[in-house]
């Protein structure tokens, strides 16, 4: 599904990603952990097509295509979804109108007719139920005045609407109460299929109690310094990142 090979990227001339390689196969859930500022969101931004991040080296292939050559909206229509760490507010634009435009752009891309208003509203209802999002949120402007947790739930709702092949969730669990965390995790689990994949960026093992990852990576200073099974998350929760930092430093010396 996704093959990242020796990816290097910088922002305003400052090197942030320093050679990342990663392969995500259909049906897999990958967790990415790592200290603040290590480059997790930057990696997500590169995958989603944010222009201010400059790719200086490496390749990314997605479903056999060169991802780095595609415009952001085309990546989205090809099935890449980014759950933003900080979702953006768009005043005056209703969630209904926003989602309808997005869903129909996706449909057009697939050669399908736009949904009728009633079919669309039915779809909204179904998905709202699926992810247990408060009905009222969908009647407001995009993220405007939403609480931190509501914004995160809204990202999951949008993911449910767009049915991506590869969803990258950037700290969607941060700032959520226990119930909301369960809702978000359930949302992911309900949308999980053998042919779609998730990259879940998180700081907390507790999310991974609900969403069982196949692989856990640790990103540190722009590099993936450790990759293991879900037990790695537990170890990190107990011991923090210091031991990994030490390992990395020793490796550099050695």
């Amino acid at each position: 599904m996704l093959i990242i090979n020796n990816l290097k990227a910088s922002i305003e001339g400052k090197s942030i990603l320093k050679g990342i390689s990663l392969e995500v196969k259909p049906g897999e859930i990958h967790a990415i952990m790592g200290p603040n500022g290590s480059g997790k969101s930057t990696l997500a931004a590169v995958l989603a097509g944010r222009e201010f991040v400059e790719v200086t080296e490496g390749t990314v292939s997605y479903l056999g295509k060169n991802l780095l050559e595609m415009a952001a909206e085309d990546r989205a229509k090809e099935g890449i979804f980014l759950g933003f760490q900080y979702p953006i507010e768009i005043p005056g634009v209703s969630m209904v109108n926003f989602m309808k435009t997005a869903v129909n752009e996706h449909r057009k891309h697939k050669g399908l007719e736009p949904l009728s208003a009633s079919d669309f509203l039915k779809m909204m209802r179904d998905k709202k139920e699926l992810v247990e999002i408060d009905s009222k949120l969908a009647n407001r402007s995009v993220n405007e005045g939403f609480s931190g947790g509501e914004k995160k739930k809204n990202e999951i709702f949008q993911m449910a609407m767009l049915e991506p092949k590869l969803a990258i969730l950037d700290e969607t669990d941060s700032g959520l109460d226990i119930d909301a965390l369960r809702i978000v995790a359930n949302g992911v689990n309900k949308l999980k299929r053998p042919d779609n994949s998730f990259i879940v960026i998180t700081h907390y093992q507790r999310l991974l109690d609900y969403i069982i990852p196949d692989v856990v990576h640790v990103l540190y200073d722009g590099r993936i310094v450790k990759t293991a099974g879900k037990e790695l998350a537990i170890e990190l929760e107990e011991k923090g990142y210091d031991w990994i930092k030490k390992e990395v430093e020793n490796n550099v010396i050695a």
Partner: protein
Amino acid sequence: MEKDQDKILSDVTTGEYKYGFYSDIEMDRIPKGLSEEVVRIISAKKKEPEWLLDFRLKSYRHWLTMKMPTWANLKIAPINYQEIIFYAAPKERKNLNNVDDIDPELKKTFDKLGIPLEEQKHLAGVAVDAVIDSVSVKTTFKETLAEMGIIFCSFSDAVKEYPDLVKRYMGSVVPYTDNFFATLNSAVFSDGSFCYIPKGVRCPMELSTYFRINSANTGQFERTLLIADEESYVSYLEGCTAPSRDENQLHAAIVEIVAEKNAEVKYSTVQNWYPGDKEGKGGVFNFVTKRGMCKGENSKISWTQIETGSAITWKYPSCILRGDNSTGEFYSVAVTNNYQQADTGTKMTHIGKNTKSTIVSKGISAGHGQNSYRGLVKVLKNASNARNYSQCDSLLLGDKCGAHTFPYLEVDNQTAIVEHEATTSKIGEDQIFYCNQRGISTEDAIGLIVNGYAREVINKLPMEFAVEAQKLLQISLEGSVG
């Protein structure tokens, strides 16, 4: 509505001005230039009565004593009035009760603009008066309306058929001495619409006038007079377009509205005159005086304007709230892209008791556009319990454009409550990227965001035109980002 929105968002593919074509219609033009002789020729061409010629001449002589105002926040190239043609009309205008009598080229023009002149083809529930250059060429649904006593015709026809009404109301809201451009208009005005809604009648359809400048070097000076008698209601809409040309064209119009006791008038404008090219060459100079008089108690006048066109817009649709408990409203969206400039706003004059006014102004600037809101809320001494609420928002796309607000207040009554709010915001790259990430292209994202921003105003438009306005907003901002 929902479906139409999809269409808008997928429809749009080019950023060019769509109405910039020129039609080769056989025209009757007078030589260029302005003089007392020209004023007389215009009046003679229109076979006007003596009293109207006198009105014109009086206005012209007054105009000679006036200077062009300079207080607006606009850079205006000098206008040479001797280079302008003040009268141009499609030739051989018979009495056009039959569509077949219209020059086919003319009919094509309006078809191309999406304004078919055949009644059966037209939008259900909308009557149209079509004005090209200096004359009205066709008014639809005249007979249907006449059955209810509603008069809807060209200004010229009104002068002939209803001289008493014209005499009584013309100049009663905008006197011929009002301002430089209004005075010029009073001297040389050509055609426009006239509308009278009798006592107790709710006009069953939208009335609309469609203005088109076609000829080169020609100014358009239309004049519209709208009278809503006691207990009546009317919703009126005007639209405007012009061919793309390298030189600037002058448009100086007057609109006067009178609302008697318990009457309500909604006046909407979708102004899309040619804005000039991307380098700021050409475009219409739009200097307009629009004013409504809430004459009777409980009367209401509501202005809604979507201003996307013109190189320069100088326009302040205003309300004089003379009747007790009368209400004035002004809802505006003004877009300036490339090198367009707009100085627009309103004046609410509270004279009667318990009068209310609401002002919602949304400026959108892109490219090198300059957008100014200028408003005056004036509460006179005897206007007890006057209320005003003003909200002026500015949206900026890019960093070469400008937004300015000039709100003025003159309050001479202690009981008045006047509120003013203002915001300035930018369309962020973050917002656009968020849309991109959901599969929405940048152009569509801007359309979505801008329409969200302007929604409050667009919602005030009649349904049939709201969709058109949304589309227009998006088109006029194309190519403004990225």
